[in-house]
């Protein structure tokens, strides 16, 4: 038998190094940061942030080159289980950019908190790596690995303030539930694999059509539920508020934007490539989740007095809006739904990060997370006040600010589907936009119309890094709002949809 082994000529798989360059850059960066961190003494730790930032940007370069030169789809690698196409690239770019902004945000937080900066940035890079991989994964296995890769560091980052009870609690809750969820997810995946005989999504998709067996339905539901946890869709959202509130604010920003987006990306990929045949299973399931998510998220957000917690719930309800198009992906609106989700993810990232950036900047002065602490902000920090107005207005979906176009797309997908259930969902969403406006306006009211709580009106001077973050996010929010064409172009995805033969 050994002879037979020897007899077999072994040909190494051809690897498209260019295609996986971003991942490679990140990996290299991770190791670099880790090593340098060993030698660097505490006083110079600040350099870590800069270095991480450069790593992130460095990883963007190959993404860009791929987008420009690459042109055709590169699915030769790992026989189509790991694909680099426009869809993947735009999302990779997004994740890297978000990562960069979060680095900018966390820099001073960590410095002043005297936390373990080196480790933190390493973990963050790892998590981002997971996300970047997620964008390309086309196989249950790689999806799972990417998911864990981005989650596990996130668990730790959530609990980063070791001495702080809240932070611990946040970490533990996130961790336990996260692991539990991925257990459920895996269980579903195992059935999926078992009933279709493959872990490659396209093959699953091919096999999974027509009438489904009970086992397949169970599988589909568990898989969707598993991802639903990541995107904190009601009723799988319970961890989100506690974790968001407990975790350090930059981490919260990271979770509420990056890991949420990653969850959506996973869901998208799985749904579109693997489960599109099972739409009458996950269609209703997602419909209910979307409706619940936006409604519950909004209503609870109305009651919040802590701004981070409020934003947490708001991001829950935003998740509902992002889910909305997926509820009708089966009913002929597949393409517009996909586009809607991607656009939403892109723009939502800017606005939400921006909001967090302002919160961080303000909290540096007020040392409080209460909404009331924003009272009279406009009087002593007009810049931050206006920016916050822009971000919240965008989140509320008011033209011409970012998210309006995303919301428009979402509605468009629903109306496009045209089914009565879609219309019902559209009406629910319409009502929810109003409720949402309610609590966003409450913050704005504090900023513009209320007196300064403690007559302290010393102007706020955020560090340059935060200004930079604010600049990026605000710019994105406004520009994408007025000229959505810029990103909408990336959002029509012939490749992915082509794989579906749509």
């Amino acid at each position, binding site marked *: 038998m050994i002879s037979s082994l020897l007899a077999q000529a072994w040909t190494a798989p051809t690897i498209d190094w260019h295609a996986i360059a971003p991942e490679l850059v990140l990996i290299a960066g991770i190791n670099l940061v880790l090593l340098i961190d060993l030698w660097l003494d505490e006083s110079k730790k600040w350099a870590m942030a800069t270095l991480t930032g450069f790593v992130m940007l460095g990883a963007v370069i190959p993404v860009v080159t791929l987008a420009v030169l690459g042109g055709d789809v590169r699915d030769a690698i790992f026989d189509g289980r790991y694909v680099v196409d426009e869809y993947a690239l735009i999302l990779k770019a997004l994740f890297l950019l978000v990562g960069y902004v979060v680095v900018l945000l966390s820099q001073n937080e960590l410095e002043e908190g005297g936390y373990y900066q080196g480790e933190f940035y390493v973990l963050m890079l790892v998590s981002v790596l997971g996300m970047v991989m997620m964008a390309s994964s086309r196989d249950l296995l790689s999806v799972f690995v990417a998911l864990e890769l981005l989650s596990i560091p996130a668990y730790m980052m959530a609990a980063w303030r070791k001495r702080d009870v809240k932070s611990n609690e946040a970490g533990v809750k996130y961790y336990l539930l996260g692991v539990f969820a991925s257990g459920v997810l895996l269980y579903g995946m195992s059935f999926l694999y078992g009933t279709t005989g493959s872990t490659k999504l396209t093959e699953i998709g091919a096999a999974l059509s027509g009438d489904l067996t009970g086992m397949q339905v169970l599988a589909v539901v568990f898989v969707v539920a598993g991802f639903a946890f990541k995107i904190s869709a009601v009723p799988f959202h319970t961890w989100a508020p506690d974790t968001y509130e407990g975790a350090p604010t930059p981490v919260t920003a990271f979770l509420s934007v990056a890991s949420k987006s990653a969850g959506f990306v996973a869901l998208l990929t799985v749904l579109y490539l693997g489960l599109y045949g099972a739409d009458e299973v996950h269609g209703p399931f997602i419909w209910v989740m979307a409706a619940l998510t936006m409604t519950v998220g909004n209503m609870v957000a109305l009651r919040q007095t802590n701004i981070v917690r409020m934003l947490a719930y708001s991001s829950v309800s935003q998740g509902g809006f992002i889910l909305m198009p997926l509820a009708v992906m089966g009913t002929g609106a597949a393409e517009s739904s996909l*586009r809607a989700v991607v656009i939403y993810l892109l723009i939502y990232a800017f606005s939400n990060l921006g909001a967090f950036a302002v919160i961080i900047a303000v909290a540096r002065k007020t040392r409080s997370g209460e909404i009331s602490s924003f009272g009279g902000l*406009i*009087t002593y920090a*007009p810049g931050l006040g206006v920016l916050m*107005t822009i971000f919240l*207005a965008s989140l*509320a979906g*008011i*033209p*011409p600010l970012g998210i*309006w*176009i995303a919301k*428009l*797309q979402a*509605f*468009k997908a629903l*109306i*496009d589907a*045209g089914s009565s259930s879609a*219309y019902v969902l*559209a*009406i629910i969403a*319409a*009502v929810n*936009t*109003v409720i949402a*406006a*309610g609590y966003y*306006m409450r913050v*704005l*009211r504090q900023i*513009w*119309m209320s007196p300064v709580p403690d007559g302290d009106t010393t102007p706020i001077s955020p560090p340059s890094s935060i200004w930079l973050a604010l600049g990026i996010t605000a710019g994105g929010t406004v520009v994408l709002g007025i*000229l*959505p*064409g810029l990103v*909408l*172009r990336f*959002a*029509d995805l012939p490749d992915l949809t082509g794989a579906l033969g749509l």
Partner: protein
Amino acid sequence: MQTITNDTWLLTVGTFLPLVGVLLMMFVPASEEKTHKQIGILTSAVTAAVGVYTLLRFDFDQSEKLQFFVDSEWITVIKSNYTIGLDGISLPLYFLSMVVTLLVMIYTWDNMPDAGNPKSFIMLMLVLQVGMAGSFIAQDLILFFVFFEVVLLPMYFMIGVWGGDDRQYASLKFFLYTMFGSALMLVAFLALFFQTGAASFSFAHLMEAGALIDRDVQIWIFAGMFVGFAVKVPMFPFHTWLPDAHTQAPTQGSVILAAILLKLGTYGFVRIAIPMLPQGAKAWAPVIGILAVIGIIYGALGCLAQTDMKRLIAFSSVAHMGFVMLGISTLTDFGINAALFGMVAHGLITGMLFFVAGSVKHRYHTLEISRLSGMLIQMPRLGWILGFAAMASLGLPGLAGFWGEFPAILSAYNPNFGLSEALFRTLMVVAAIGTVFAAAYLLWLYQRTAFGRPNPEFEQGAHHPVGAGVNDEHHDVDLHDVTKIEWIAWTPFLIAIVVFGVYPQLMFGVMDPAVSLLIERVGAGIP
């Protein structure tokens, strides 16, 4: 729709020019209040100048065509273009918005609301101007929606920051109400888009394709738009935000609100809902008519119940917009002409009334009708202006108000497209009775505020008005008559009211061709 592509830059410049001012002001520290006011006035003046130039360049012989037409790509993916144009229907409102903004700016010069901070105040007004002007030139549904919404936030802040005591409640109410309306409106827009084959959002296309949608669908889509626009107008059941918003808003806010913002709703009906969904419009016309007339009577009753001058004027808006909607609901070119005229007239007159109310508040620190009297003795000019505006508002022939009111009533006698004559004639009579109510509450107001002897508590130099309400900052009462700035800001209003009243052709001439064309279209859409 025929178009003329000349001076393509004109509308874009005219609309977005205020933003230049905003940018400028960004770099001026808030402390330099005078500079900000100057920039504000300057910007709006230049904008208005562009508006005048637009008037000069506008080809009045072809006012039914879209002029200065631009159609360039904007969001190609959702097939929405940057399509703008100006025709006889939108020209008056477009120009009005510019002029009103300018005059309000001038008024602001020495009537800055108590909250201070002119920098943001003026910036907001300029942004507001962009939204208003934009909504009137937009020829693309999405573009219209965007401008329509742009107006929202600045107004929210104007009310909420510079408003009266109950401002926060009022502003939030205004915001959520409108938000709700526009959300449903958006759904309706999209439904329309897909029902017309998802080809384009441009008005021209939708007008042709929309008529082909089958009736029931049209009715449903119209319902969505109806809510959206009716909230803005506001029509009877949706009106409750208006009195609060108006009462709480600063004078400038009230004026702009009355003069322009409310018109966005009615304009939407005329420009979008009716021509694009003829059958839906026909089905809804009776409902609109009935609600409009209810609004007329109801608003009047509301006025009679008021003890606060400004709130009374606010309620009168409900009644007047009722006349406008009545004219629209007849679906006759005659009625819609009247409605359009009524919009402008109401804008001028009610705007004027709010100006006066603002100045009264500024001098007496109260608007309690029961405490004001003998204004004619203490401030004769202000008193006469109030009288003039009141007379105009109750639809006295020879003043602008009449031409919005009487033709609307007239048109209700025989509505178009076989709408129930019995119903509309009843409406006509009720509406006519409404005019009596108008006379009642306005004269009643005038008699109690302007006539009689001054209230002793407001004798010159009296301190701390007795029984002063909460809203009285206890200033010394100094009752000076109309100031120079006020004259500058008001005279154009007064002149316009008279000129349009004496020679309505000025406006009818511009609107009529466009409206007739529009009705032709509607007629073609109704089997």
